[in-house]
């Protein structure tokens, strides 16, 4: 098949070095070949982005660590002044540089993190007694406006993480404490948030929005949708709770997500990593169902043996399908 013709595979430095070592490429040819696969402009583009993003990440991590330290000798006014000044400086600089430039987008990301730091220090100083979920919710609301303007995938990712944390903490600290039983609703809501984001991304990609083209964003969101749905579906399978309608909603949504993801990532936008997540989700739910049936029907030893065989069978089928799909998607991306 064309995909497996070695000459058509992406050239790798190790392969070129092997050709040189075998005497098939001269020293000037080796040098030119290395330059061809990683020309200086590609190195510079990569180094420029990596140094900016990693440098900013470490600097911001240092700022978070510093204010988490809660230095007693530093007055509240100075703390708020420093964070506020940093926030304003980042926003002004982002405006001056422009949001079409990676530096401007990174400055906006830094401003978003500083909003969270500001709220955390506010909680330290005034001890309002508010739940942590309120801090995260306020954070998500405050940065939503410029997140929507920035057209920067990492900023949306930060926003989603903050919102996820807010919803999770709300159910964990407020609702679960009152009801004292497993709640399906938070998982379903989180899955819906991820599904909406995923649908937005897919629509944006179809509309040619290049900033949404990064594959890792899709994989993270598919993971979010499937993981948040598999948890309540597995719980419903093991211990059905007729009084909680969210369990049934989770099952219906999972079935819908499976059908939609299976079709979309196989035929409309072929993506093997997304299909692998889809297959893994199916395996977990199917094995939970089979495990429950086996546990009810057999004693421990037979149950364990049959469960082991079921795991091998179900995962084997998934692997067989994925390998077949891998070959069928010939001409697609390099999956090494």
């Amino acid at each position, binding site marked *: 098949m064309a995909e497996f013709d*070695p000459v058509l*595979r992406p050239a*790798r430095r190790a392969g070129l070095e092997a050709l040189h070592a075998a005497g098939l490429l001269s020293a000037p040819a080796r040098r030119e070949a290395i330059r061809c696969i990683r020309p200086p402009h590609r190195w510079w583009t990569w180094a420029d982005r990596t*140094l900016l993003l*990693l440098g900013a990440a470490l600097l911001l991590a240092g700022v978070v660590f510093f204010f988490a330290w809660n230095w007693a000798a530093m007055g509240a006014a100075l703390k708020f002044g420093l964070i506020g000044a940093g926030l304003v400086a980042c926003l002004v600089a982002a405006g001056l540089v422009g949001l079409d430039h990676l530096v401007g987008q990174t400055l906006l990301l830094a401003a978003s993190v500083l909003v969270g730091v500001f709220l955390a220090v506010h909680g330290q100083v005034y001890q309002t007694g508010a739940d942590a979920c309120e801090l995260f919710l306020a954070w998500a609301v405050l940065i939503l406006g410029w997140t929507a303007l920035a057209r920067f995938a990492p900023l949306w990712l930060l926003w989603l993480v903050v919102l996820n944390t807010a919803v999770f903490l709300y159910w964990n600290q407020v609702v679960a404490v009152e009801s004292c039983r497993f709640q399906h609703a938070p998982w379903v809501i989180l899955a819906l948030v991820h599904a909406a984001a995923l649908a937005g991304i897919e629509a944006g990609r179809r509309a040619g929005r290049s900033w949404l083209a990064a594959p890792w964003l899709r994989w993270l969101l598919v993971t979010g949708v499937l993981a948040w749905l598999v948890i309540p579906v597995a719980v419903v399978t093991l211990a059905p709770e007729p009084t909680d309608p969210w369990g049934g909603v989770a099952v219906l949504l999972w079935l819908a997500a499976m059908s939609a993801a299976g079709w979309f990532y196989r035929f409309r936008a072929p993506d093997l990593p997304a299909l692998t997540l889809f297959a893994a989700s199916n395996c977990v739910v199917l094995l939970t169902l089979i495990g429950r049936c086996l546990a009810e029907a057999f004693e421990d030893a037979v149950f364990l043996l049959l469960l082991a065989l079921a795991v091998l069978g179900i995962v084997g089928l998934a692997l067989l399908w994925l390998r077949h799909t*891998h070959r069928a998607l010939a001409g697609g991306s390099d999956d*090494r």
Partner: protein
Amino acid sequence: MTDRDPSYGDVLRHLADRGLLDPARTADLHALLARREAAPDQPWYVSALAGAGAWVAGFCLVLFLHEVGAIARWEAAQLLPWGIGFLIAATALRRRARSVFLVQLALAASVVGHVLVLGGVAELTRRSHGHVFDSAEPTGALAAAAVLLAAAHYPLNRDPLHRFLSVLNAAVFVVVWVFDARLHVPLYLLLLLEAAGVAFLFTWHRTSADLRSLAYALATAFVLTHVVWISRLELGAPEWPARIVSALWLLWILHWSAGGRSLLRHEPLLVAGAAAVLLAVVAPPGLLAAIGLLVLGHALGERVLVGLGVVFVPAYLIVYYTELELGLDRKAYLLMASGLILLAARWVLGRRPWAREEEAA
């Protein structure tokens, strides 16, 4: 980066256009590439699913053996024969198996074999030293057994996933032993071995496809060792030897990525080298490891290596935050200084004339 990597065909055409390729050797070139670049059986994430399934099935089988009484007493006399039997069966089955189901069964049997053999060694050492984690000697015996298992398993079992998991398993036990025994010199030697192994196996042109599992297992073990160390700073091991190892490792990777000695004097490499040395002075050693993996992965076009470096950074920072031995203030200053060094390197590089020329290109 949005532009795709050129194929070998593109590169060879490019060389031929410049008169750098001998047309008479084309068939040899293709033959060597066909040997080296054989299509992967399955991508790494599909292998991860296979590995997860085999682990679950393997543990069900261990519990089954316990339930039917084969290893009911959890004694070395029961565990070791069963474990060795499972390992032999797994190796034999894997050599003959073509069906995906039998390959999965072989992997699950290998998991059972590893668990039972290591359980047997733990049981033997527990008898002579008390509880297995009461002293370093039992964990040392476990680490030695895991290394021996991996060394014996690697040449016999040709499955890349088996090999990766077996070597990683051994590396994890060695890390547990080093930290459990509070051994400083073996910790530095372990880091040196992992760093040298990663650099050598990924950059040496004669590294065969058989050694890729070892290379990836060592890269994973390298980041794991750093994460465990940063969570166990109470060990009191001075950081300077690890800083020297990490700095030399990063300098070697930068040098190799730049194309070798002839390019060493080039300005970007000098700036990168100076930044690496400065980082070695202030940054936690794990960050140098992450940067090295990112550079190496980009130079080789190995996305998995780049992904490992990207995932490692936040994981390392979270563990660094929760570690209590070092004050948050000091950690904050070190991280801010590290970030500023990287941003300064970018600023210096971006102001050089060649950078503007490259941007224009």
